[in-house]
């Protein structure tokens, strides 16, 4: 079979179907369909799905964090050291260590400060400590810092330490505020909300003031 014969057979095999006379008109009508309809509808559906997913994600995240917070509260005393507890020990020691020279410096300048409160000079408890202990330490620290701030306010600093003295008061007040936030977190049964970095930042600021005074 040559190619021409094969072509004839091929035509016969498939058959002939005349084009419908209205196909051209239908095609022309099809063009009249709004072009943007389909894509915009798809985009709308996609946007709606994305919004639903986003809302579901946010709600799920909140539920999850709430769940973990609840787990933390239900579990009772924490047997592992929490970040707050871990950061508390050096923090407490450093304050007591730094405060002593400040008192000495003020005393040498004729402006005696009371000695550091007993709660501050006590050695830090051995880790791990549980949440109530951590809360107690923070509370003791806050109380001690408040006493420091009160002592500092009652003392009249030497002229050369006046600025540093004022700054130290400000930073100690900030530190007291940070410790208050921490205590609130413990009292609200949300120990995870306690941010040791925040407390440490105010503490670091106070330490720098101390360093200025001792210079």
């Amino acid at each position, binding site marked *: *079979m040559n190619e021409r*014969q*094969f072509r004839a057979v091929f035509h016969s095999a498939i*058959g002939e179907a005349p084009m419908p006379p209205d196909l051209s008109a239908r095609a*022309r009508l*099809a*063009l009249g369909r709004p072009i943007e309809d389909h894509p915009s509808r798809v985009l709308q559906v996609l946007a709606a799905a994305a919004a639903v997913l986003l809302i579901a994600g946010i709600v799920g995240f909140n539920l999850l964090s709430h769940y973990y917070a609840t787990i933390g509260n239900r579990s009772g005393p924490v047997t592992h050291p929490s970040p707050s507890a871990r950061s508390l020990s050096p923090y407490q020691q450093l304050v007591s260590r730094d405060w002593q020279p400040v008192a000495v410096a003020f005393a040498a300048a004729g402006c005696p400060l009371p000695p550091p409160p007993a709660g501050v000079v006590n050695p830090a408890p051995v880790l791990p400590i549980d949440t109530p202990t951590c809360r107690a330490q923070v509370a003791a620290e806050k109380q001690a810092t408040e006493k420091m701030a009160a002592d500092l306010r009652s003392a009249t600093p030497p002229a050369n330490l006046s600025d540093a003295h004022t700054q130290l008061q400000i930073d100690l007040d900030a530190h007291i505020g940070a410790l208050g936030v921490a205590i609130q977190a413990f009292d609200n049964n949300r120990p995870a909300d306690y941010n040791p970095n925040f407390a440490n930042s105010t503490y670091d600021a106070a330490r720098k003031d101390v360093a200025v005074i001792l210079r």
Partner: protein
Amino acid sequence: MFETSMSMEGDRSEQESAFMAGIEPLLPMAYRLAYGLLRRPEEAEDAVQEATLGAWRHRAAFRAGSEVRPWFLAIVANQCRQTVRTRWWSVIRIADPVTSWVDPSDDASDELRSLRSGLSKLPPADRLVLVLRYYLDLSFDDVAATLHISAPAARVRTHRALARLRPNLVVPEEFQDE
């Protein structure tokens, strides 16, 4: 003329008129291709209509200076492939390609029935190249342009498709571009 038909300038009705002026002469061939691939007049109509709409929507992708015919036939062929492959009911009508080609009730000769049976079993790409070449009577150059391949590649692909038909039919060994 062809480039004018794909113009994106002017208002919408002007663009439509220019587009249809370029596409309308190709509709009989497009329908023939669709029928040759699908073997169902109503599906062929739908395929050509959808292909026309697709060509209109994507006319910006048409390369200036190239021919409209192979571009449009490629769209039609693609639409036919979609028709067979992606319609959800094609799963139910899994035997569709075969039943549309092989009708036990027809009184065609054994040779024709054998050829239809062979075509129904061919992969879609092979069927496409044979329909373009032997049903639309395109030259190898035109087949190549429609399939976006070179003319020698079109020749080879036709040869291979025919070779797959050979168990069913005596087919030409040699090709001559007419």
